[in-house]
């Protein structure tokens, strides 16, 4: 069918629009190329950019090299994650299905004296035998209860029901899973009955306030559980972070069990005491037990059964080296990107640039894209190299390295590149707005670095609402609600999620670029 005249005109209009759009695209590409040429041909900037990448890698290497904190490797749990597995275990062998019931009549705790200086739990507990100087205090995650596991190896699968220092009754299994039972502390006026049953692969936990009315807390399915398992009473007490103390300290908990009764096929009549020892910092010789009668025990233990998080062991967070490298590169990137914008003003080149491309917003956009892309490339490459080097150096130093997934590693590499790229674009915007190099570099540094100086020790709101929030993109350590720890930036924890942190920086950059675009259109060049 022949097209009508109107349709042909319409087609021609589309053609025209298409051509204009194509010319626009070509125009912006040419602009990008022009800006790239301007950057590329200033040898000092290219050298400075390479120097920034080298400084990144070098500083990462040095801070990894200088961290001397050899610790025994933490065991891996059923999911491959690092775990703590240190406790006092009084157990019997159970063949096939069965159950164990016990009443916890009391739970008390004590910790080693506090050190006024900051440090880690290892530094405190290694000062020797402190048994006579213990101070009373029950750790919030002190645990006492019933546990079932295939063996007493480090990192083995398990299911347990327990009373805790200040988190009520809990059922936990395989280190990371948790369901709450009866709330409130345990004491002479509020004893807790606990029961753990096994039926095939399924372990069920129950609790009760009177031993008559039972409530199911939860179930756990432990895959490939052998027929013969160990079931018994356990007590443990983790590193204690008393309010206001500079450093954590190891602690011990003591539980009074009575009305202990077992059902099922338990081949041996006697109980076996077993201080399950791991790498975890403990109070020396704190693992004790006493059988007061057939079904009554007093057990003390020190340690933790929990996922491993940062700062519990004195291993340096591998990413801390990367943060140091990034900060060094960040400063150079701010200077280079600012100069990229301000030097045109100083030399008057900006008038030629604007005469050649009168759409000033697009010139600014091209500058931001060029500076941002180059900083991104330098940052991503430097991070990738620094990651490989620091992990090798830390491993050679004997530091424990948390297992790191491929996607997390990719996020750190791409994210650090984006951090530097966005910072460069922000610096271009500031340079365009302020036109003076000194003021613009100072403004960029104050926005991107100063909040880190003031807020990185504690990880306060400055690390959430200023451009420094973007450093959260480098966080890789697991965080757990089941462990009390210092979740602060130096230990690898940021007060904002990784991509949200980067989005904060992106928002600042967008606002600054918009303001610069508006200004550059308003002002005479």
């Amino acid at each position, binding site marked *: 069918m022949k097209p009508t005249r109107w349709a042909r005109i319409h087609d021609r209009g589309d053609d025209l629009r298409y051509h204009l759009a194509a010319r626009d695209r070509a125009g912006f590409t040419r602009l990008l190329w022009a800006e790239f040429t301007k950057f590329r041909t200033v040898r000092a900037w290219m050298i400075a950019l390479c120097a920034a990448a080298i400084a990144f890698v070098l*500083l990462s290497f040095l*801070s990894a090299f*200088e*961290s*001397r*904190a050899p610790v025994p490797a933490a065991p891996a749990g059923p999911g491959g994650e690092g775990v703590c597995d240190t406790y006092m275990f009084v157990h019997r062998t159970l063949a096939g299905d069965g159950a164990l019931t016990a009443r916890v009549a009391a739970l008390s705790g004590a910790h080693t004296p506090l050190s*006024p*200086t*900051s*440090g880690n739990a290892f530094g405190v507990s290694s000062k020797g035998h402190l048994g006579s100087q213990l101070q009373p205090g029950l750790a919030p995650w002190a645990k006492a209860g019933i546990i079932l596991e295939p063996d007493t190896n480090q990192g083995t699968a398990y299911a347990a029901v327990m009373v805790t220092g200040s988190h009520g009754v809990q059922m936990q299994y395989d280190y990371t899973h948790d369901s709450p039972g009866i709330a409130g502390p345990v004491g002479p006026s509020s004893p807790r009955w606990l029961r753990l049953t096994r039926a095939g692969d399924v372990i069920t936990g129950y609790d009760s306030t009177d031993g008559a009315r039972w409530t199911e807390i939860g179930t756990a399915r432990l895959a490939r559980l052998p027929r013969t398992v160990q079931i018994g009473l356990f007590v443990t007490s983790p590193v204690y972070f008393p309010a*206001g103390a500079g450093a954590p300290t190891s602690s011990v908990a003591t539980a009074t069990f009575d009305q202990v009764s077992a059902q099922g096929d338990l081949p041996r009549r006697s109980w076996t005491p077993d201080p399950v020892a791991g790498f975890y910092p403990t109070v020396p010789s704190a693992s004790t037990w006493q059988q007061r009668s057939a079904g009554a025990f007093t057990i003390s233990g020190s340690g933790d059964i929990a996922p491993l998080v940062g700062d519990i062991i*004195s*291993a*340096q*967070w591998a990413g*801390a*080296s990367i*943060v*140091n490298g990034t*900060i*060094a590169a960040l*400063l*150079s990137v*701010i*200077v280079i990107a*600012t*100069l990229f914008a*301000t030097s045109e003003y*100083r030399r008057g080149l900006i008038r030629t640039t604007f005469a050649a491309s009168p759409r000033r917003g697009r010139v600014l956009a091209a500058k931001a894209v060029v500076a941002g892309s180059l900083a991104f490339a330098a940052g991503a490459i430097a991070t990738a190299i620094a990651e490989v080097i620091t992990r090798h150096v830390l491993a050679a130093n004997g*530091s424990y390295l948390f297992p790191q997934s491929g996607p997390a590693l990719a996020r750190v590499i791409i994210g650090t590149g984006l951090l530097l790229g966005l910072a460069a674009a922000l610096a271009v915007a500031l340079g365009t707005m302020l036109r*003076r*190099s*000194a*003021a*613009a*570099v*100072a403004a960029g*540094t*104050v926005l991107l*670095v*100063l909040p*880190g*100086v*003031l807020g*990185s*020790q504690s990880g306060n709101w400055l690390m959430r609402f200023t451009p420094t929030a973007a450093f959260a993109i480098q966080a890789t350590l697991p965080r757990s609600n089941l462990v009390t720890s210092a979740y602060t*930036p*130096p230990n690898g924890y940021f007060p904002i999620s990784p991509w949200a942190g980067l989005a904060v920086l992106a928002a600042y950059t967008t606002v600054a670029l918009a303001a610069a675009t508006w200004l550059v259109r308003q002002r005479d060049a």
Partner: protein
Amino acid sequence: MRGSLHAEWTKLRTLASTFWLLLATAALTVAVSAAAAAAVRCPAGGCADDPAKISLTGIYLGQAVVAVLAVMPVSGEYGTGMIRLTLAATPRRLIVLAAKAAVLTGLILVTGTIAVFASLLAGALILPGHGIGPSHGYPATSASDGPVLRAAAGSVLYLALIALLSLGAATALREAAAAIGAVLGLLYLFPIIAVFTGNASLSRHLEQIAPMTAGLAIQATTGLNSLPISPWAGLGVLAAWAAGALVLGGMLLRSRDA
């Protein structure tokens, strides 16, 4: 020397930006100090916070403006080519540098005194309402008090030394962006690296030699035993950095073509 002083004073005085930067130094220092004081929460008392240090938090930001101000007299002259005229008029180049240093120091001392005492005043008005005051067992923060007076006077000297450090860096590097980047890098990089270093003794050494962490030890009025470096020794470290930068700048100024 007097002629040089007069010339430098005229050059600095007649720049509109000098006034605005001095105003920004004072205003930002006081504003950040007041905000930091208002952000403290210690309802029960017994916090480990140092009232004088909180009241002077603004110095962290104020020093960046001081650095910009102190870089301008040299970098600005290099940028416009004015430096050749200045050096032609006063061929003894170190005299030029000394005159610039003297004029800058005088301006910063005056501005810094205003900013520091206004910050302390703001802190004294705000902090008692947030649980840090005489009613909570803290000594009253009066500027006539020994340690507080030392913190206040030391903070003013700190700003003056930052200005001299920046002047030296600018004379050595000439380019404003590079000079300001170097100065702020020197100031802000060390503390962050100290925080993110797994080696506690290295971290303490870094805090002892870093110009900012050592210099700001002068602000401490409580917990003096746990400081990485004693207050006046810390200010001495910063003075050494500033002297080093000025000597390097002076040597390069003498030996290089302008």
